[in-house]
Every structure is written in structure tokens, then in C-alpha cells.
């Protein structure tokens, strides 16, 4: 990463002492952090609040209903060779998303090593993983809709189940879909060499591209995986 030129010649202290001097240094606060990366992090913090509000609303809704909550391990069971396996599809979705998170982490690593081919292929693999995930989610939604799950009621139990399910998984699925679109765009940009030889100018900007953009994209993608960890725990397993 081409680090912030302002920090050249300054001794950076580690730990909390470093935090105090970074914060009070009357210049860039996040030393050596690309502005795009800092902005992505701040966006992700705000997105964390959005998802937290959904999950807290779900906690409140599920906790306050006197009607029995549908048993997720039965509702999301899938027949494999005639035997109902609890949460099979959800487990597969979890593994697909973790796989794509791993390929993304490696793409970031190869990007910084200026290994254009490996970086591009790994981003493409990540995009295909994300696409698989969205496909499985479409299947899950259509299965539940056929079984009569609606935002206002369902045949399994408490009426609130459907609205929380569609809202939370739908919002997460939207994030995955947007991520997949950007992964394909960035796979193209990497293969086309937009980050090679000093970088090519991006869209709507005169700034030159840099492999740090792959790390920023990676932050978003890992965040999508991170949110799924919480949804998996609270919505499907609880």
C-alpha cells in the first residue's frame, strides 16, 4: 500500500500511546490507512447498526409473543435422499459464504503482491461463491413461500416469523447481491490491469487505481460474511 505521505519522517508509537498521539497529532488520524479504507470502515459501522436494529427487533418480537415460535430446525429442514436433514440448506449456505470469504482474503493478499492473475481468479471465485449463495437463498425463499410463509402469518406458529425472516435475510441477500456485482466489476478491473504500472484512472475520478481497492472490496465482502455469522446464530440456530 502506498502509505499516507504525511507520516513520512514521523516515528509511529505502538498501542494505546500510539492511539493518543495519532488522535492528537493535528493531521490525518488514521496513520497509514488509505482514506477509502477508513470510509469503508465507517460505512460498515453504520451498516452494523442497521443490522443490529433488525436483529434486536427480531429479539423483541420473538421474546414478546405468547404464541409458540416456529422451530427453525424443522422449518428449514431439507429432504436429502428422502430423509429430512435439519438446516441442511442453511449449513451449505454458511459453508459457501465462508469459502468465498477465504478466497477474498487470498485475493487481497495476492493483490498486494501484485500477482494480477491470481488476484483476478480469486475475486472471480468469490463472485461465483456469492452467486451460489444468492441462488440458494432464492430457492429457500420460494420453498417457504410455497409452504405458505407470509410476512403477516405462516402455518408453523407465531405470525411475526415471516416478517422478520423476509426482512433480515432479504436485507442480507441484497448486500450479497450488491457485493457480487462489485466483485464482477473488480475482477474485470484486475484482469484488465487497472492497478498495474501506477494504476489506471477510475470512473468519476481522476485518481489512479491501486490494489488497496481490492482490500476495501474485501472489507465489504467479509462484513457480509460477518453478518451471516450473526444471522445464522440468532435466526437459524437459536
Amino acid at each position, binding site marked *: 500500500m502506498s502509505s499516507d505521505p504525511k507520516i513520512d519522517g514521523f516515528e509511529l508509537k505502538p498501542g494505546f500511546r*500510539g492511539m493518543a498521539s495519532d488522535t492528537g497529532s493535528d493531521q490525518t488520524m488514521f496513520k497509514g490507512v488509505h482514506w477509502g479504507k477508513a470510509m469503508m470502515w465507517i460505512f460498515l459501522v453504520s451498516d452494523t447498526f442497521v443490522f443490529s436494529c433488525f436483529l434486536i427487533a427480531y429479539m423483541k418480537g420473538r421474546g414478546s409473543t405468547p404464541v409458540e415460535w416456529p422451530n427453525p430446525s424443522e422449518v428449514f429442514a431439507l429432504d436429502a435422499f428422502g430423509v429430512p436433514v435439519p438446516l441442511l440448506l442453511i449449513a451449505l449456505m454458511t459453508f459457501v459464504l465462508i469459502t468465498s470469504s477465504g478466497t477474498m*482474503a487470498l485475493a487481497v493478499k495476492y493483490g498486494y503482491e501484485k500477482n494480477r492473475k491470481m488476484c483476478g481468479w480469486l475475486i472471480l471465485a468469490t463472485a461465483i461463491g456469492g452467486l451460489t449463495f444468492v441462488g440458494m437463498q432464492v430457492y429457500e425463499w420460494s420453498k417457504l413461500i410455497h409452504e405458505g410463509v407470509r410476512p403477516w402469518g405462516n402455518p408453523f406458529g407465531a405470525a411475526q416469523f415471516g416478517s422478520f425472516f423476509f426482512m433480515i435475510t432479504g436485507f442480507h441477500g441484497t448486500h450479497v447481491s450488491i457485493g457480487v456485482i462489485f466483485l464482477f466489476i473488480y475482477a474485470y478491473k484486475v484482469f484488465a490491469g487497472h492497478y498495474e504500472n501506477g494504476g489506471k484512472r477510475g470512473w468519476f475520478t481522476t485518481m489512479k487505481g491501486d490494489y488497496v481497492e481490492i482490500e476495501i472490496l474485501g472489507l465489504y465482502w467479509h462484513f457480509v460474511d460477518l453478518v451471516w455469522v450473526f444471522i445464522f446464530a440468532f435466526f437459524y440456530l437459536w
Partner: protein
Amino acid sequence: MDNTDQISEKEKKTEGSSHKIGIYLWIWGLLFVLSFFSYMVDWYQFQGMLRWSLILFFMFLKAGLIMAFFMHLFWERYALVNVLLWPMTAIACFIFLMAAEFQYTFITRMFYFFVGGAA
């Protein structure tokens, strides 16, 4: 000049721009194993406190590994890490508030729907 070289060497370490492939593969493998374990919690139909504590344990471990290593927070400077993590305490407060709230709503509903209120 020697001094600047030393600093840029240090920057490389703290920025964590490129790490050995081993660390990523390790974390990747651990995430698979932890996901498998959390799926097993449902498979064996653990119930009650055991179920909830296991779910939370695996969830926080997975989230921590993703944030620390895949999202590079372990290698970031504290100025960034602290700005990102302290706001999460607000979420924790909100969870406690709403937990108290849902218990109140539940008790009120039980009281009026099933007991019929204070006649």
C-alpha cells in the same frame, strides 16, 4: 536516511498489507471447523443454557476471527480499531434495554390475554 528506512520497515509491519498465506489458510480452516461445530449444536438438538452458550461461543469466535484476520483489524493501529469497536457498546446497551422491554411486553400480554387482567 537510515532512520526513514527503519520507519518504512515498521510501517510494513503495522499496516499488514501482505501476510504469509499460512495465516489465511489457518483462519479459513478454523472458520470451517467452528461452523461445523455450531451446526452440530442443532444436529444433536442441545437445549437450554447449553445450546445458547455454545451458539454464542462459536458465533463470537467466528466473528472475532473474521474481523481480526480477514478484515486485518489485528494489524491495524489502535486509533482505527478503537473508533470501530467502541460504538458496539451502544448496541450492547440497546440489547439490554430491549431485553427488559420484551419481558415486560410478554408479561403484560400473558396477564391481559390469558388471565384477563385485574378483574
